[in-house]
């Protein structure tokens, strides 16, 4: 049990219908998440990075079964999440919690923050007084003095304070896995650092496992052990954070890292960053979805999507460039 992955996702797929007409029939499908698989081992932090609209948030909601996937499986500590009947699902939910991106929409404006944090415990049958006491203790732990803030409403707090409340709410059920959906993207840089430090401390204290979603490469590189790079609903590259930063393999990952501003003049862009917007997920390109923006696109890229192929321990990339003459290519790239 301890050796295996804590969370295992296999072939997750979610296509959202675009409805129209009198009968509200599906006219087209938005392919938000298409065949995503990954493992999360206990106490590690897996980062998920990609442009806006690549399906990161949908993936988070699929894993927690807030949205029902069209296909695929999610296993948490050996238990099937997607097939769990309501009572078992309710118990599983205690173990996997979510911290949202928007610190404004994620707190009920009509609850005091201690009630907002205590709500999860009440749902699971904890007596009100005990729940409130635990909520107040946890608020103190995330840096909000319960005597000053406990009876306040969300709109009386700043963005960073609200995000602390969100973290407290997610932790109140003592989960083992925390899915963080862009937890610091809406915050100022200085507040970001405080919240990231808090998350790191809490992880160490409670032996938590994180799935950390962000579009910010710096943040992802800083917090993650392993990183998944997503493009248009698919994972294009998986590897350790160090490896991806040092030697990104997929042309998209390379472009992502190349477009990140750097302080080192020698590392400044030799190549223009990605041009244009991602294609429409309603009608993605055939074969490899990145080929329309890829500098190395070949005829075969349009034929069939490349399967992920291993490049090293824990490093996988879905790109045909590494089929034929990987050595030659890598030499070309690094010189």
């Amino acid at each position: 049990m301890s050796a295996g992955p804590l969370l295992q996702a296999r072939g997750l797929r979610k296509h959202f219908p675009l409805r129209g007409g009198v009968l509200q029939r599906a006219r087209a499908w938005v392919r938000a998440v298409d065949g995503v698989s990954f493992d999360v081992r206990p106490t590690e932090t897996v980062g998920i990075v990609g442009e806006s609209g690549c399906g990161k948030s949908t993936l988070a909601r699929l894993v927690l079964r807030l949205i029902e996937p069209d296909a695929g499986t999610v296993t948490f500590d050996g238990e099937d999440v997607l097939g769990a009947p309501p009572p078992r699902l309710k118990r599983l939910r205690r173990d996997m919690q979510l911290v949202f991106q928007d610190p404004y929409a994620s707190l009920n404006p009509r609850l005091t923050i201690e009630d907002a944090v205590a709500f999860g415990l009440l749902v699971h049958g904890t007596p009100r007084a005990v729940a409130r006491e635990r909520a107040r203790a946890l608020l103190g732990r995330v840096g909000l003095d319960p005597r000053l803030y406990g009876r306040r409403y969300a709109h009386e707090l700043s963005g960073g304070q609200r995000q602390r409340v969100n973290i407290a709410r997610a932790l109140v059920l003592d989960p083992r896995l925390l899915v963080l959906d862009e937890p610091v993207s809406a915050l100022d840089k200085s507040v970001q650092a405080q919240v990231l430090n808090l998350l790191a401390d809490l992880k160490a204290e409670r032996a938590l496992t994180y799935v950390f979603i962000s579009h910010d490469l710096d943040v992802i590189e800083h917090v993650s052990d392993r990183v998944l790079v997503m493009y248009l609903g698919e994972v294009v590259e998986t590897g350790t954070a160090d490896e991806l930063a040092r030697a990104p393999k997929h042309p998209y990952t390379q472009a992502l890292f190349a477009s990140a501003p750097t302080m080192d003049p020698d590392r400044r862009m030799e190549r223009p960053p990605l041009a244009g917007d991602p294609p429409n997920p309603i009608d993605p390109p055939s074969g490899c979805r990145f080929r329309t923006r890829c500098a190395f696109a070949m005829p075969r890229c349009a034929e069939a999507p490349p399967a992920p192929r291993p490049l090293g321990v824990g490093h996988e990339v879905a790109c045909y460039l590494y089929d034929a003459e990987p050595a030659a290519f890598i030499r070309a790239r690094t010189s």
Partner: protein
Amino acid sequence: MAVTTALPGELEAPALAPMSYWRTVAWRLGRDPATLAAGGALVAIALAALLAPWLAPYDPDAGSIRARLAAVGSAGHLLGTDEQGRDMLSRLLWGGRMTLVAGLTPVLVAFLLGTALGVLAGYVGGLTSTLVMRTMDIFYAFPSVLLAIAISGALGPGLANTLISLSIVFVPRVVRVAESATVQVKSLEYIAAARASGAGVAAIVRHHLLANVLGPILVFSSTQVSLSIILAAGLSFLGLGVTPPAAEWGLMLNTLRQSIYVNAIVPALPGVAIFVTSMAFNLLSDGLRDAMEIRG
């Protein structure tokens, strides 16, 4: 603008006693003179109607041929008499009861039923929503006056039928507001967070949804009261509402209408009563909307 080392915002703000939502609303209402005046007027009108049996100087239905259409201020009849010689003050007091009942009941029914249906449609979505909302659209397709007249005409005159027909007019409106408010709140992340913590539908609706949609629905419903009063009076005016000789402001307006050439002031009195009451309700709902707004 001297440089201060302390952080006054952070130190002082939490020291203030935090106010609960309803206390904040009450505090804001207390500082809004127009709303207070409207509220006071409504309380006075409601009390006058409630205490009509004790306040009215005459039997509202007993007339006298010899004392027809006395002018306002004539001896013994403070507000004059109507075309059958009945005391106007007594009839206005008694009529207020009917008008308020006919105005408030449909809105109350619509508030309860409309909230239930709207939240159901909005939260469940899918086929349920289509079924509920398209049914409401059928009623919504008719102009409200026409719909009220048609239903009242089919059911026949009488207070009960007026209430039924007006409720049918107002339920779809409230459903629409409740549904759109629910759909909007449902998509917010705190609802998803509640689901993620394992809460069932009942707990989410009770603790997270209702508290956030009731405000807009309540405010919208309160704007409908004045319309309901006018429609109820209109139905009576057309002979489809309260039946004579009972006093009701709309009905009084109808029966006094021919007398306008004899005495212009007395026939205008029920109209003034309707105007003042519906205006007060409008002002009150405006004030409620401002006071109940959540400011971030």
